[in-house]
C-alpha cells in the first residue's frame, strides 16, 4: 500500500506542477474574456482561502470579511490618486493598512471573551459602517468613488492574482501542517481548554486575523487597479463577504483544498448559468449555502470522503478515522 501511496502522490504532484505551468502560460494565448475570467477565479480563491484561515482553522466566523477587501481597495486608490504612488508601492500600502486595521480590531475583539455570534455580527456591522462612512466623506470619494488610470496590460494583473492565489494556498498548507496551525485548531475545538494547556489564544487569534486580512486587502487593491474603478458599494459589497464564506463552506471549511474547489466550482457554475436577471447569482449562492449547511456541512470535501469510505472500505477494521 505504501508504494501505491508514493505513486499516487507523485502523480498528484506532477498534475499540480503541470497545471501551474499551464496557468502561467495561458495569458499569452487566451482571449481577453478567458483571462478576465481566470483573474476573478484567482481572486475568489484568494478570498476564500483567507476566510478559511480564520473560520475554518481558528473557528472565528466573520460575516464581514469583505471589509478588508474594501480597505485594501481604497488604500490603493488613495495612494494612486492622492499620493501618486506607483502600483506596487500602493499594493504594499494596501497590505500594511489592512493589517493595521486588523490589528486594531483584533485588539478589541480577540482579546476579550466574546461569543462567536457576537464576532460574526460585529464584523458584519464593521463592513456596513465602513461603507456608510466612505460613501459620506468627500475626501474619500463619497459615493462616486474613484476612476483610476487604465491598466497597461492584462498580463500584470493576471500574474498578481495568480501569485496571490498560489500564496494563499501555500499559507493554508503551512497552517494545516504547522504547530501554529495545531494551536489554531485547538482553539476551534475548545478555546477555554486550549488556553489552559498553554496556547496563547489571544496572540494566536490576532495573528491569524491579521494574516487573513492581508490577502483580501491586496486583492481589493489589485482589483481596483484591474477595473480602474472603485466605489463604496463595490468595495464593501456584502456579496464579497458572502462569497468568501460560501465558497469555503461549499468546498469544505477547515480543509486545504475546500476553498479552491468551492471557488472554482461556484464561479464556473455562475458563469455557465449566466442568467440575465441581476442579483441572480447571489440568490443561487444563498440557497446553496443554506442547503449545504443543512445537508453537508463539511462541504464537497467531506462528501468525497464519505463516498470514498463507502466504496473503498478502509483496510483497518473499518473504523471511521475521518
Amino acid at each position, binding site marked *: 500500500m505504501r508504494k501505491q501511496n508514493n505513486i499516487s502522490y507523485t502523480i498528484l504532484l506532477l498534475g499540480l506542477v503541470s497545471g501551474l505551468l499551464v496557468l502561467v502560460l495561458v495569458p499569452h494565448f487566451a482571449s481577453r474574456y478567458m483571462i478576465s475570467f481566470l483573474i476573478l477565479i484567482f481572486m475568489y480563491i484568494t478570498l476564500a482561502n483567507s476566510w478559511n484561515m480564520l473560520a475554518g482553522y481558528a473557528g472565528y466566523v466573520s460575516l464581514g470579511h469583505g471589509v478588508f477587501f474594501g480597505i485594501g481597495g481604497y488604500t490603493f486608490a488613495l495612494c494612486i490618486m492622492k499620493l501618486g504612488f506607483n502600483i506596487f508601492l500602493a499594493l504594499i500600502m494596501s497590505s500594511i493598512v489592512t493589517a493595521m486595521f486588523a490589528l486594531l480590531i483584533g485588539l478589541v475583539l480577540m482579546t476579550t471573551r466574546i461569543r462567536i455570534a457576537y464576532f460574526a455580527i460585529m464584523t458584519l456591522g464593521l463592513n456596513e459602517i465602513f461603507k456608510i462612512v466612505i460613501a459620506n466623506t468627500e475626501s474619500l470619494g463619497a459615493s462616486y468613488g474613484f476612476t483610476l488610470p487604465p491598466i497597461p496590460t492584462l498580463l500584470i494583473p493576471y500574474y498578481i492574482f495568480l501569485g496571490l492565489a498560489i500564496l494563499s494556498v501555500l499559507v493554508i498548507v503551512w497552517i494545516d501542517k504547522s*504547530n501554529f496551525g*495545531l*494551536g489554531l*485548531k*485547538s482553539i*476551534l*475545538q*475548545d478555546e*477555554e*481548554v*486550549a*488556553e*489552559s*494547556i*498553554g*496556547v*496563547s*489564544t489571544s496572540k494566536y487569534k490576532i495573528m491569524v486575523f491579521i494574516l487573513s486580512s492581508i490577502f483580501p486587502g491586496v486583492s481589493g487593491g489589485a482589483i481596483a487597479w484591474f477595473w480602474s474603478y472603485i466605489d463604496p458599494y463595490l468595495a464593501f459589497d456584502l456579496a464579497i463577504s458572502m462569497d468568501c464564506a460560501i465558497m469555503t463552506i461549499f468546498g469544505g471549511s477547515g480543509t486545504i483544498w475546500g476553498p479552491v474547489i468551492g471557488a472554482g466550482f461556484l464561479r464556473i457554475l455562475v458563469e455557465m448559468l449566466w442568467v440575465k436577471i441581476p442579483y441572480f447569482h447571489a440568490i443561487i449562492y444563498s440557497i446553496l449555502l443554506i442547503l449545504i449547511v443543512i445537508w453537508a456541512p463539511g462541504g464537497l470535501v467531506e462528501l468525497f470522503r464519505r463516498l470514498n469510505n463507502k466504496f473503498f472500505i478502509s483496510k483497518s477494521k473499518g*473504523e*471511521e*478515522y475521518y
Partner: protein
Amino acid sequence: MSMKENSFIFECDKITKDFGGLRALVDLSFKVLKKEIIGIMGPNGAGKTTLFNVISGAMKRTSGSFRLNGIDITNYKAHLICRLGIGRTYQTVRPFLGFSVLENTTVGVLFGKGKENISRKMAEEKAGELIRFVGLQGKEKALAKNLNLIERKKVELARTLATNPVLILLDEILSGLPTSELEASMLLINRIRDELGITIIWIEHIMKALMEVCERIIVLDNGVKIAEGTPKNISLDPNVNEVYFGRKRKII
C-alpha cells in the same frame, strides 16, 4: 518533618471569589508540599471547581493571592499558568473531540511548560510515552469523539501530563467510572506522583478513594474551609460529620 518555606510548591492565601451577590470562596488558605497528594472534599456547591477555575486562571479571583514555587501567579492568564507548571482536568471531561489521541497529547507537549521550539516529531515521541503511561497505547490514531468515557478521561489526562506540569488539579476524575475501574485509576494517580514527581490536588466525591490515596484532605462547605488534616482526622472531625451526615458521627 520540617516545613521549610521553599518546600511548599503551592500556597493559597485568603482567596475569595464573588459572583455578583454570591460568595463562592471565602478567605480560603492552604499550603501544599511538593509531591503531596491533597484531596478536596465537600458537598455540591461547596466551591471546589471554582477553586480550580481560579487557580488555573480560567477565572479571576476577587481577593487574595496564590503562589507557585514562591512566584505570585495571582493575576496571570491561564496559558501562562500552564507554562509555569499547573495543569488541570475537567469535571465534564473535555478532550479535543475532533483530534486523535496522539494529536491531543502532542498539543499538550507543544504548548506546555519548557518546550519552546520542539519539533513536531519529537513532540509526538514524547506524546507516545505519555499515551503509554495512561494505558492508551494502540489507540493513538483514534478520534477522541469515538472513545468511551474512561478512554476520554485518559486522553485528557495524557494531554494534561504532556504540558509538563509540576502541579496537577484533578477534578472528579473518578466520576462516572464503574467500580471495577476505581482501583486502576487510583493506582494511576499514585504513579503520577511517584513516577512523574507531580504534586496533585484532587477533588473527588468518592470519599473512599480520597481516604486511601491522599496524605491530607481539605473539606470545603459553602466556600469555607471547615477542616484540614489526615484522612483519619477528617473522618473523626465533628464539623465534617455534621456537614455530611447532619449529626456528629464517625465516617466509615
